[in-house]
């Protein structure tokens, strides 16, 4: 059995510092295991958020050696253990304590997006007929586990702090899932352009890089939304047509 040192951020919004903890590591361990071990042995009150420990709930997001990661899916054998492993909370959200941040802003943003509104059912029993092909396109977006790592890494939020103007990659994916839902009848394009700030995204693809579900956020969600905004809001022909059709 060997040991490794973990440099963990301890503190709250007022004050804090990194603290080093050395603990034993064994084959197959992930970062969250090390954090739990430290919590049980040395720092009972260490604050960390987690649930499923299998990459399915998106609770244990943090920055490991500066990279936004799910701690439960980051194996220690992917990190250099001859130097301390740095673990710190996500930087885009206000700190609560230690590794836990206040992500409530995300929940507020979601409420502002128009909810799903299905077309009338196709069959008398209230069900619909949908092709598997159409289903698969939105299923990619619906894989999202809401870990908010894409929000964490997005420079519009992280560096420019435009939380009140831009909904961030997570909610662009959410909007894309609704817009491309085969049954949906709602129109969210004007909101995207005006209130949700889709234009702030300059497609640097940082969000795509960190997504633990491998959702092609930029290519499959954001760019198509940007195109729809352009088509609907700025295309002169469409604009004229709309004047006649209402």
């Amino acid at each position, binding site marked *: 059995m060997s040991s490794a040192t973990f440099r963990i951020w301890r503190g709250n919004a007022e004050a804090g510092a990194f603290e080093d903890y050395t603990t034993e590591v064994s084959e197959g361990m992930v970062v969250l295991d090390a954090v739990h071990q430290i919590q049980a042995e040395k720092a009972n*009150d260490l604050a960390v958020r987690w649930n499923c420990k299998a990459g399915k709930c998106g609770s244990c997001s943090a920055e490991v050696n500066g990279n936004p990661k799910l701690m439960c*899916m980051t*194996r220690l054998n992917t990190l250099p253990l001859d130097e301390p492993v740095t673990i710190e909370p996500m930087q885009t959200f206000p700190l*609560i304590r230690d590794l836990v941040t*206040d992500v409530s802003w995300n*929940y507020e943003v979601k409420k502002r997006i128009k909810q799903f509104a299905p077309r009338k059912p196709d069959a008398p029993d209230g*069900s619909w007929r949908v092709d598997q092909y159409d289903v698969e396109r939105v*299923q990619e977006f619906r894989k999202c586990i809401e870990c908010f790592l894409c929000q964490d890494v997005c420079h519009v939020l992280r560096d420019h702090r435009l939380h009140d103007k831009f909904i961030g990659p997570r909610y662009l994916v959410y909007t894309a899932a609704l817009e491309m839902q085969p*049954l949906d009848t709602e129109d969210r394009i004007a909101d995207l352009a005006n209130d949700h700030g889709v234009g702030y995204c300059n497609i640097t693809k940082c969000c795509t890089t960190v997504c633990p579900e491998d959702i092609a956020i930029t290519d499959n969600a954001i760019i198509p939304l940007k195109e729809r905004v352009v088509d609907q809001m700025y295309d002169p022909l469409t604009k004229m047509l709309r004047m006649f059709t209402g």
Partner: protein
Amino acid sequence: MTYESFEYDVLVIGAGGAGLRASIEASSAGVSVGLVCKSLLGKAHTVMAEGGMAAALGNVDDRDSWKVHFADTMRGGQYLNNWRMAELHAQEAPTRARELESWGAVFDRTKEGKILQRNFGGHKYPRLAHVGDRTGLEMIRTLQDHGIHQGIDVHMECTVIELLKDGDRVVGAFGYDREKGRFRVYTARAVVLASGGIGRAFKVTSNSWEYTGDGHALAYRAGAELMDMEFVQFHPTGMVWPPSVRGILVTEGVRGEGGVLRNSEGKRFMFEDIPELYKSSTADDEEEGWKYTQGDKESRRPPELLTRDHVARCIVRELREGRGSPHGGVFLDIAWIKERLPNGAEHIKKKLPSMYHQFKQLAGIDITQEPMEVGPTTHYVMGGIRVEADSQMSTVPGLFAAGECAAGLHGANRLGGNSLSDLLVFGQRAGQHAAAYAKEQTGASINSDQVEAAARLALEPFEREGSDAEGPYQVQFDLQDMMQAQVGIVRSQAEIQKALDAFGQLYERAGRVGVQGNREYNAGWHTALDLRNLLMVAEAVAKSAILRKESRGAHFREDFLEKDSEQAKLNTVTRLGAGGEMEVVQEPLAPIRDDLAQIIDDNK
């Protein structure tokens, strides 16, 4: 003291599938709803459900109907089920599934564009509506995204530690917020418990830290009866390696798609022991089993798709007899289907994406190339709060329960896929009836003595420092080790008794637990508070297990290997005795209605 206070018509505790569905229903009935959850919204254990949601839609095989689903559920539960719940569940699940679609869920489709259904253990026909192998995520997200527009007040990261009563009636709850550790008083005309399971009472479990039997213990302390607590489901296939992921679930969907179990000798050992009840519905050979998984209607299911209790025990047999895999499991092989399907590897990735991902990332194994190692993991508790079938009201007025924390639907063993449907069917019913009950009530008064007593008790761990105090984690670990070893998959009088003898000391140690730091997001403190619930439910499991002297469903006694016809008629009831002691007794089941008995006979 004054605490932050909230008042609702209906307070729902727990925000997994059942709690969300109950909240949505109560809210649509026009009452005010508060929803309290231990974690962030959308993170509850429902997200872990992989295989699907059982509903007799008949989209893939039109011979299916609620009657067949009912008979399957009763057979799976070894007839200890509350038959009325099994009836309602089978009848209402299709409506609940379609409703989920109308709220935005995106299920996989059949060629005709209907909701696709897959095979699962114990279900006669392909019955599980699903989304790849992440159906639970689809369900919780759909409910969450629908629920946030319903005017429900959500209290995230808030834990309830005591229910408050006015006379016989439950009128509220007392808890704390995780962020600051501040106490909160909730006044409510009706309370719905939807707090999930008790997996953390065992060492190897698929459950997260949250599942410490809170709802069970809250209800018990409030005077409600629990039922059938001996029935704990050990899912046959959890990961066994690496050690840190031991217990994480490997979906039954792997077997539904054609995955097979083999021992170290390469033998498909499941063919060796097929229970009498299932002989006529199980494949004779490997070929027939394969055809079944590929949708051949004339074929019967492979023995890997027998009920979970049976598969788990067969795995334990192989392990005990020395035919296990290198890391103490058996082999689950889906890669072999490449022999049968030209694009096998792609097919596996498409049908089981999160399993592919999970093994690749956590174990460094490519499941399209090599077998997985799997072994049983504590997954689900069939037992729980005793409820009235139609309304889901417990034996205490004003207190309702739905989902895993309620008892009845699953009897001695739950069929895979019947949990997600349970959450929706009975979440809806609990929400509806709690709202109706709340409307009939006049104001309730909160007793400040109860509040103060709960607050005092909760803060005690901070006052215990010094040599006598012990950290909360070691007590929890010791309890988990004990339950795993002595009240686990294979039980006996002597072993259970050993566990029961050890409870005194564990309670005593729990009473001495001390914590460091302050009340802000303090995991040690939370673990200390959860210990009380965990010990209570563990004791109920052990006491119920020693009373049932037979093997039935998930409860397997090596000193009583057979089913007993007398105990077939008995439920096990746990309640708080007059002197504060735990009382566990057996009570007769209600005789089944004739028409339902006929359905069971017709489907034998």
